[in-house]
């Protein structure tokens, strides 16, 4: 083949190849830029939103449906203090000087949650769901070497982080609490009691919860936040079966950490009125409205 033919073919192939490489890069880069752009826009928006609220509620399933114009509700079912601790670390600038409610109740100190983290079979999927919350509002997952075991297979990138973000911030609180009432179903309450307190070494042994609750409070105190432990109402049948040392430990914890407890059991006195509850300790829509009314007046 003549040299000029060879050169033409070579140049042509180089041109086609460059075209291919540029198109391939664009094919991947454009969606990455769009994804990242949307993510950062939402994150910035969330930071602004966070700055505007005077009260932040770091809650759990008990506080999931609490809504008030003064309160930004960041509730995650499962009482994960390590998740809230990570959240406060990520957004400490926006939290500084604010009033922060931390939902904390007796069952939060049960070893139940640590057991779930250590043994996935107890509640399949719970552990990975809690771990994924550590990177709410992050594009790339972090290692969290103190919490997540090294051998756990966890990808660096989770495409669901963006839709989760949108769901968390813009869709979740539009869902409504149910009107269902527990009535006098003490059997289901007994089951919850069994679940929370049947482990022989339940008493204050959940080192993960305690450690991260203390860490969270310390971090918030250091940043001039007014921390309040929010104790949501529970049914009296449940309260009567909570071990006494747990009850005293919660008070002890608040004294040692120098934080107030807002005990809605005492303030609202509804623990005997089961029409406000949908199970052992979760208020229904009716019960929630009482809490919201109370919090409106609360300074």
């Amino acid at each position, binding site marked *: 083949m003549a040299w000029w033919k060879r050169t033409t073919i*070579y140049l042509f192939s180089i041109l086609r190849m460059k075209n291919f490489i540029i198109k*391939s890069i664009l094919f991947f880069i454009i*969606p990455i830029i769009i994804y990242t752009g949307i993510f950062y826009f939402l994150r910035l928006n969330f930071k602004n939103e966070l700055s505007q609220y005077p009260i932040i509620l770091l809650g759990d399933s008990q506080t999931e449906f609490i809504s008030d114009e003064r309160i930004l509700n960041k509730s995650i079912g499962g009482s994960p203090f390590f998740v809230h601790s990570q959240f406060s670390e990520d957004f400490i600038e926006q939290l500084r000087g604010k009033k922060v409610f931390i939902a904390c109740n007796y069952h939060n100190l049960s070893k139940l949650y640590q057991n779930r983290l250590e043994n996935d079979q107890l509640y399949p999927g719970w552990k990975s769901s809690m771990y994924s919350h550590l990177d709410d509002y992050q594009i790339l997952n972090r290692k969290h070497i103190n919490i997540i075991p090294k051998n756990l297979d966890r990808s*660096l990138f989770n*495409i*669901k982080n963006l839709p989760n973000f949108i769901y968390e911030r813009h869709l979740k609180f539009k869902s409504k609490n149910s009107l269902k009432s527990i009535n006098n179903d003490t059997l289901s309450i007994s089951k919850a009691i069994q679940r929370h307190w049947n482990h022989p070494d339940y008493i204050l042994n959940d080192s993960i919860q305690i450690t991260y609750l203390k860490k969270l409070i310390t971090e918030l105190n250091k940043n001039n936040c007014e921390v309040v432990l929010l104790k949501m109402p529970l049914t009296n049948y449940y309260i009567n079966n909570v071990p006494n040392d747990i009850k005293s430990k919660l008070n002890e914890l608040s004294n040692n950490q120098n934080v107030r407890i807002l005990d809605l059991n005492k303030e609202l006195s509804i623990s005997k009125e089961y029409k406000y509850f949908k199970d052992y300790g979760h208020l229904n829509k009716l019960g929630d409205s009482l809490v919201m009314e109370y919090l409106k007046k609360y300074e």
Partner: protein
Amino acid sequence: MLFNSIDFAIFLPIIFILYWFINNKNLKLQNSLIVVASYIFYGWWDWRFLSLILFSTIIDYSIGINLKKQDNQLKRKILLYISVIINLGFLGFFKYYNFFLDNFITAFSFFGSEIKASSLNIILPVGISFYTFQTLSYTIDVYRRKLNPTKDFIAFAAFVSFFPQLVAGPIERATNLLPQFYKKREFNYSNAVDGMQQILWGLFKKIVIADNCAHYANLIFNNSLDYSGSTLIIGAIFFTFQIYGDFSGYSDIAIGTSRLFGFNLMQNFNFPYFSRDIAEFWRRWHISLSTWFRDYLYIPLGGSRGSIWNKIRNVFIIFIVSGFWHGANWTFIVWGALNAFYFLPIFLTNNNRNNIEIVAQGKKLPSLKEFISIVLTFGLTVFAWIFFRANNIEHALNYIKGIFSNSLFSIPEIAPINIIIILLIFVIAEWLGRNRQYAIEEVKTKFKRPLRYTIYYAIIIAIFWLGGKEQQFIYFQF
């Protein structure tokens, strides 16, 4: 290095750019880069076993050259036997040593003699069954004078270790792949786009189909005694899709990657689950292995010639050896034998070549007869896969016993709707693309850019969104 890993996602573009930009002018350099890249690719898993590949390469290269020089038939035969013994010797040692040892001990103890021998802790080198067969095909073809031996050692080393298909096929013939290393490769835009498309589809099959099905198949097979008959059927069906998604997905990635480098590999899967009989299934499943056994074992044995008993013997040999190739376990042998039983009736009645073309060609849907044939063939295949997946024969038999129990018609304990919907969409996509080499091949030419890109991005999102937990490719263990 796994195709579905970050390591490979970094490795591939680097090699691609080096290959086309730096070495475009020099074929030898280009082949050398392939050898280096392939050795890195393989060594990523365990560098110690690179010596095996290198040794096999040197032996077959030298034997090939000597076969050409030698006219004496006896000496040629000896050279061929040396290659076969060395290659199969490695394979036998690493893959089958413990199996034979255990079975000898069991057999002797059955007759009352005690033999004391302990198993060795042998690691099976990844892909040994694949590259061994590939190099063997070279020596046999040179011996048969179907192929001229190569004098270019680098080209031969690249042929033996070509990284896209090194560890799990397709098992390429020297007659197809080796000449491609002699020719200058020109970058072809259309081929490269096609390659990327096939890689994408392969990743979808592996990550979305196979890995999701693997989760439930493992759960059900590992706890088979706890589940109802209906759930066990679901477990077997999930494994059926797992192995197809896993292996054909790997082949798609391998073929697509090769295209990026200007190579054409043979099609390894041709929509086997749409087969109307077992003979058709075996023409469409793991084609590179089936044709290898056909050409180098079945035909030398006499193939379909001779007496009826010879025919039956040959069919059993090829299916059992094919089963045994997959692993040193009686389950694979039974799986092979079972397929021979399926195949024999249609073979002996000369109906094994009734269905050559893909089903319902030019039509949207199959006829009722075709549909029933597909379902029946699929059912037979699912049943056979139980032996393939089971840990041992007892496990397989208990699994089957569990299926045909009173709970066969009960509501299954495990029926993940999301996975079932994904499988349905997958089957529809495969059906629509069954005339092509892979299901979405036509996307590139049939659809305009907006729709084309929507499909690509939908697949990418599905891979990230619906992907199951990362699993090793099943065929790595073979």
